[in-house]
């Protein structure tokens, strides 16, 4: 038992048991682990970048995949890559970028593993044009509790394949996967910044860049009220190539985030001040385009080791939800609720999802407006707020993201994932998680 295994939001104080296979065949150790611990259920654990309890298994044990991080094959001509599931996206990027390739979809951290990216069917700033990570997986292997490793792809055993994409690790332990990379000619991006006020302005910026920009995302102020309500900074970007012309005179460092502050200093005044500073730091009215390294564009928070510690040992909740097209007013209502609660954080991210379907049966991204934000854990008040938000998301026909969640009730889960019944037959009989026990109850 060790407390080494925690989720990113410090969701639980419960200790986790784990086996650490160094070679894929050692996953077979599980009968031994069962015998030793007198329990059955297991769950793959990568680098603990899920925020809630979907990566924990207090009643059973974890299969720590961090040592299963070898490349299997990398074709520099075609951009096809195969690797063991415990490899991190960062390790993949370090290898493929010099060869002129890039991940087809990047979540917010390069420390997530390949297996985790598949099990959560992660999305990125290019969802509106490219869809989710799972769309680029050409093949994967799942170790089932009957001792068999099943190879599946969109063409063979596609039922298990589709269940495993976004399947939260419940179809078995993903041991390896193959991926189509995308070609790039530079590790830099041309990033355009536009300020906006209100969701309407955001929507017009977002729809305006659908055809012109591969990446788009917005930072949203969820503290300010009155005339500053729902203000933000919209970012749209493309990989840099020879054709890009930049107004480099405007290039300058982005504002630093005061993360060295002790967590006690994080309150509504400092967060409000941060939000204002961030907004004001982006030149008023007219847009500007700057050149940014891929790391600072895709993974700004990775630059701050263990940034989750700023919330102190009590940790924090993250809530990420999507409301369907046409329900923008619901998002506005929810935002008002968050603003008036004073619980809003400084890291609120707004993104319009596109219509491209994922193969994953339990995939979270779907057309609509998606907002992600942190709440420092202030006990009951925070829980009440999130429950209230969840109720409205459900009424609006939206969904919340399991990878960020530790409160979702079973009825919400069923409402958010209408293909659950197709998924259930593929759940490995001896796979489970804290999240799964809650939502399947």
């Amino acid at each position, binding site marked *: 038992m060790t407390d080494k295994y925690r989720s990113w939001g410090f969701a639980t104080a419960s200790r986790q048991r784990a086996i650490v296979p160094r070679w894929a065949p050692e996953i077979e150790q599980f009968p031994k682990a069962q015998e030793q611990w007198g329990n059955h259920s297991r769950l793959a654990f990568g680098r603990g970048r899920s925020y809630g309890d979907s990566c924990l298994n207090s009643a059973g044990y974890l299969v720590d995949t961090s040592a299963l991080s070898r490349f299997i094959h990398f074709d520099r001509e075609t951009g096809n*890559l195969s690797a063991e599931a415990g490899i991190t996206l960062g390790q993949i990027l370090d290898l493929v970028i010099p060869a002129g390739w890039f991940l087809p979809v990047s979540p917010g951290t390069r420390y997530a593993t390949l297996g985790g990216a598949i099990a959560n069917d992660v999305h990125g700033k290019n969802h509106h044009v490219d869809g989710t990570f799972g769309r680029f997986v050409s093949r994967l292997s799942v170790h089932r509790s009957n001792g068999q490793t099943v190879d599946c792809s969109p063409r063979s055993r596609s039922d298990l394949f589709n269940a495993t994409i976004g399947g939260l690790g419940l179809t078995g332990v993903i041991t390896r996967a193959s991926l189509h990379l995308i070609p790039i000619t530079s590790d830099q991006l041309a990033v355009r910044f536009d300020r906006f006020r209100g969701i309407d302005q955001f929507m017009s910026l977002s729809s305006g860049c659908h055809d012109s920009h591969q990446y788009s995302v917005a930072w949203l102020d969820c503290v300010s009220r009155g005339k500053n309500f729902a203000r933000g900074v919209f970012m749209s970007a493309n990989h840099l190539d020879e054709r890009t012309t930049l107004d480099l005179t405007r290039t300058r460092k982005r504002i630093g985030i005061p993360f060295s502050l002790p967590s006690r200093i994080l309150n509504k005044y400092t967060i409000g001040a941060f939000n204002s500073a961030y907004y004001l730091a982006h030149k008023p009215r007219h847009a500007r385009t700057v050149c940014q390294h891929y790391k600072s564009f895709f993974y700004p928070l990775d630059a701050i080791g263990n940034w989750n510690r700023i919330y102190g040992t009590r940790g924090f909740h993250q809530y990420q939800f999507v409301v369907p097209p046409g329900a923008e007013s619901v998002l506005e209502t929810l935002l008002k609720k968050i603003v008036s609660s004073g619980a809003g954080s400084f890291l609120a991210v707004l993104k319009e999802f596109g219509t491209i379907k994922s193969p994953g049966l339990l995939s979270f991204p779907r057309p609509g407006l998606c907002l992600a934000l942190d709440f420092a854990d202030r006990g009951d008040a925070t829980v009440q707020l999130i429950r209230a938000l969840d109720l409205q998301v459900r009424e609006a026909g939206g969904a919340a993201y399991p990878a960020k969640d530790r409160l979702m009730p079973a009825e919400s889960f069923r409402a958010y994932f209408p293909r659950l019944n197709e998924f259930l037959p593929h759940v490995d009989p001896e796979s489970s998680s804290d999240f799964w026990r809650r939502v399947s109850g």
Partner: protein
Amino acid sequence: MASVAIREAPTDAKTSVVIFGATSALAQATARQLAERGLRLHLVARNAEKLASVAADLSARGASINTTQADLDQIDQHDQLLDSIGGIEECWFFYGVLPDQQQCEIDWQATATALHTNFTSTASLLTRVANQLASRNRGLIVVVSSVAGDRGRGSNYVYGSAKGALALFCQGLRNRLAPHGVRVLTVKPGFIDTPMTAHVEKKPAALWATPERVANDMLKARDGRRDVLYTPWFWQPIMCVIRSIPERVFKGLSL
């Protein structure tokens, strides 16, 4: 002119860096760094499946890899093994076992097996490789010994004595080969978090190093002029103290 140069160049192209025990965690971490430098690696290990997966990883990283599956305990096959590998420029010895000390205390066969793998077999390969390098007047040999070889401890002397003997053997070999321009680097790592030590409780945590850290230190030492490397560095003063404790006192300590 260029074509002549190309025809003469292959002295380097034919030779390779040989890694004995290539599937050990430390060997894998080291091989990745050697591969990044564009060196040609020849991996030798007993388990074919693991060997293939390590080779695939290094190939994907762009390295040029050869492999030979071999049980290095089989000393009578060492000549044949080295013949099949061909010209050696540099070789690293990573293999070894951590025997069950208590079992060894009651079972000579267990002790003999551990001594055979950890010392005799390596000494056999060293003897043959040394002559090959000496005849060409160049080369590098890196041998992973252990801090456990610096003093006989009641709790771990079977492993320790083999590693100690290995360090002594390397010291002699170094002095013999120095005039031939062949360098011998003895590495004495402390506690490393690897499968070999998976069952050992990792306390105190500060003394346990990752294979990557130790590999980094070894690569630096490889590029320098060091003869003996303690890694991480703090093991040098620690072992200095441990070696200097009088035996009379040491007997009373349960180390």
